[in-house]
């Protein structure tokens, strides 16, 4: 086990904490797994391109609950207006503002756990963490306490819920563990907008697990915008399970962060479910962003699309792994993957791996992945119309990433995000 893992294991509380028996048992399972396997290493296939040395060097320690969050310092403006807003500071729910729509309930996880909300136990216990590479999830489970429960009642529209994540800079680097549970009852709808931006000089790491359960015909739009500082770590896992005819749309934007890892996983349990995952990553400096997106088709007639675009410059490293698994019986599945990348600098690196695993009949599956440069013909075309070379390249690179923000259902939000992308757009070297 690495030095960091040993330290974090030592930081774990000795007993399983307070609360109902099943919660304590769950924490125990996580702690046992973590003490046995520790953190993932590059020997774990899913972590082949990501080493955690940078976290270890930072002397990362596990945050304990005794450190109460203070008021947030400076914070970037929100991307969009939302009916209901949550401020998460240092992994804990600090404040709620706005008025939730009828049908939308938001509770701190601690409250939810003490009330033993229907369906919460099943959801929390369903998080798969059998592999040696699941150390962060195990740690998250072992410290299960902080977080949020979002519930949308059957047949209602919860509107837009915004979660603002940030941590405050302090002398030592801390690891915050948080769990977000989203339950959409049948025919419920929600737009979940997550924004991650912490003040500069920050060297904390957040380990966030988001579990979403989509009932029949439920519809979840999930937008995740991340512009953390270069010293910050962000380890997140999104687990979505989808019942019949439900729809999950994900839009992820990585514009920042130091060490970023996101595991995005949708499981289509009911027939006719649809998963539409898209994202853009624009990296400069020494950022290291590792995205894994996986869709498991376990029922017939499902549809999934994965559409991701990436740009790496400076000495940034982008890792992108998409996977689709069509299980036996998931006939008539249609699965598409597309990943295109532009590499702008000689020191930057892009590693991509689009996987397909097919065990069913009558499946249409395809994937495409490219790594390359801007089309020089297009650059010349723009220059011949009067744009200078830099403008031409910027315009084309933005267009490349805009193909993701244009997919957003709210065009205004798409405009805001593409402006943000334009602002950080790296230049060719």
């Amino acid at each position, binding site marked *: 086990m690495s030095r960091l893992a040993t330290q974090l294991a030592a930081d774990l509380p000795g007993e399983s904490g307070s609360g109902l028996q099943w919660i304590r048992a769950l924490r125990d399972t996580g702690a046992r797994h973590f003490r046995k396997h520790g953190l993932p290493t590059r020997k774990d296939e899913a972590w082949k391109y990501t080493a955690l040395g940078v976290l270890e060097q930072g002397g990362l320690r596990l945050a304990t609950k005794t450190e109460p969050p203070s008021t947030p310092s400076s914070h970037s403006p929100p991307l969009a207006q939302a009916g209901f807003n949550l401020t998460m500071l240092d992994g804990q729910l600090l404040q709620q503002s706005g008025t939730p729509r009828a049908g939308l309930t938001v509770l701190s996880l601690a409250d939810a756990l003490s009330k033993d909300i229907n369906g919460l136990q099943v959801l929390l216990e369903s998080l798969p963490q059998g592999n040696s590479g699941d150390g962060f999830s195990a740690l998250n489970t072992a410290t299960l306490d902080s977080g949020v429960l979002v519930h949308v009642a059957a047949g209602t529209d919860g509107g837009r819920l915004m979660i603002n994540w940030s941590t405050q800079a302090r002398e030592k680097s801390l690891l915050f563990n948080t769990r977000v549970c989203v339950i959409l009852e049948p025919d419920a709808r929600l737009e979940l907008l997550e924004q991650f931006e912490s003040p500069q000089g920050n060297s904390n790491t957040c380990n966030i697990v988001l579990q979403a359960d989509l009932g029949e015909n439920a519809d979840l739009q999930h937008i995740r915008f991340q512009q953390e500082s270069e010293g910050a770590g962000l380890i997140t896992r999104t687990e979505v399970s989808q019942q019949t005819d439900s729809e999950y749309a994900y839009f992820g934007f990585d514009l920042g962060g130091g060490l970023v890892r996101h595991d995005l996983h949708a499981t289509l349990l009911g027939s006719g479910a649809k998963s539409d995952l898209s994202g853009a990553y624009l990296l400069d400096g020494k950022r290291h962003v590792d995205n894994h997106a996986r869709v498991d088709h376990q029922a017939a007639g499902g549809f999934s699309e994965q559409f991701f675009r990436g740009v790496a410059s400076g000495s940034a490293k982008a890792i992108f792994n998409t996977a689709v698994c069509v299980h036996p019986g998931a006939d008539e599945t249609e699965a598409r993957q597309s990943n295109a990348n532009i590499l702008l600098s000689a020191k930057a690196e892009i590693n991509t791996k689009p996987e397909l695993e097919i065990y069913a009949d009558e499946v249409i599956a395809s994937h495409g992945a490219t790594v390359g440069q801007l*089309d*020089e*013909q*297009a650059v*010349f*075309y*723009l*220059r*011949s*119309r*009067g*744009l*200078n*070379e830099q*403008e*031409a390249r910027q*315009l*084309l690179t933005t*267009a*490349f990433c*805009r*193909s993701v923000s*244009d997919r957003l259902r709210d065009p205004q939000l798409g405009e805001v995000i593409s402006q943000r992308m334009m602002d950080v757009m790296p230049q060719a070297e």
Partner: protein
Amino acid sequence: MLRITNLHARVAGKEILKGLSLELKAGEIHAIMGPNGAGKSTLGNVLAGREGYEVTDGEVIFNGKNLLELEPEERACEGVFLAFQYPVEIPGVNNTYFLRAALNAQRKYRGEEILDSVGFLRLVREKLKILNIGDELLHRAVNEGFSGGEKKRNEIFQMAVLEPSLAILDETDSGLDIDALKTVAEGVNRLRSKDRGMIVVTHYQRLLDHIVPDRVHVLADGQLVATGGADLALKLEEQGYAWLEDGGIQTLNTDPVKQTANP
């Protein structure tokens, strides 16, 4: 406005233009015809400053400036417009957005005021009206999924918005059916003005039925070998390009090739 003197250019190490000279005055339309491989497209690309086209000798003076010293975008801002033979598709870049970025870059270069989106849209509508084309092109990405005719119409539309002083139409007729050809030619004719020079590069005479040139030049093996009035195009159509090789040049009743003295 444009004086090309003894222009030599290479592409991938091979000499394509071998001493081409030409003088174009404002308000004139010159047609350049010639067989495939004569260097017609090379001329357009050299004037626009495409990479990979190496000028080894000669000069191009445009409105008193040495054009060959300018970057491609500076040439565009100076008023040189190339209507491409194969306009590239740029997925994801909205046509309107693109055109406004181009126009404002040129206006900025000339020290003019930047057009806001309202002003720009007004201008665009006006131009669409002049050219008698619908606005469906505006909402799509640049040339993406356009038919051959749509692409060429889009080039003419851009020319109308950017109002260049020199327009080079590179085989604008290629790949067009007769109706599309007429539409494009009408557009070009509407953009004829006393301040604007045009070079129409074409393989076939049929475009010149619709865009009547002031002068016609024949380009063969990297040089202009014959120059005449609009009727020269008709003669070429009748006799084909084969006579160029047969030394049949004298049999054509043409003006002598105008030679500009080397400075």
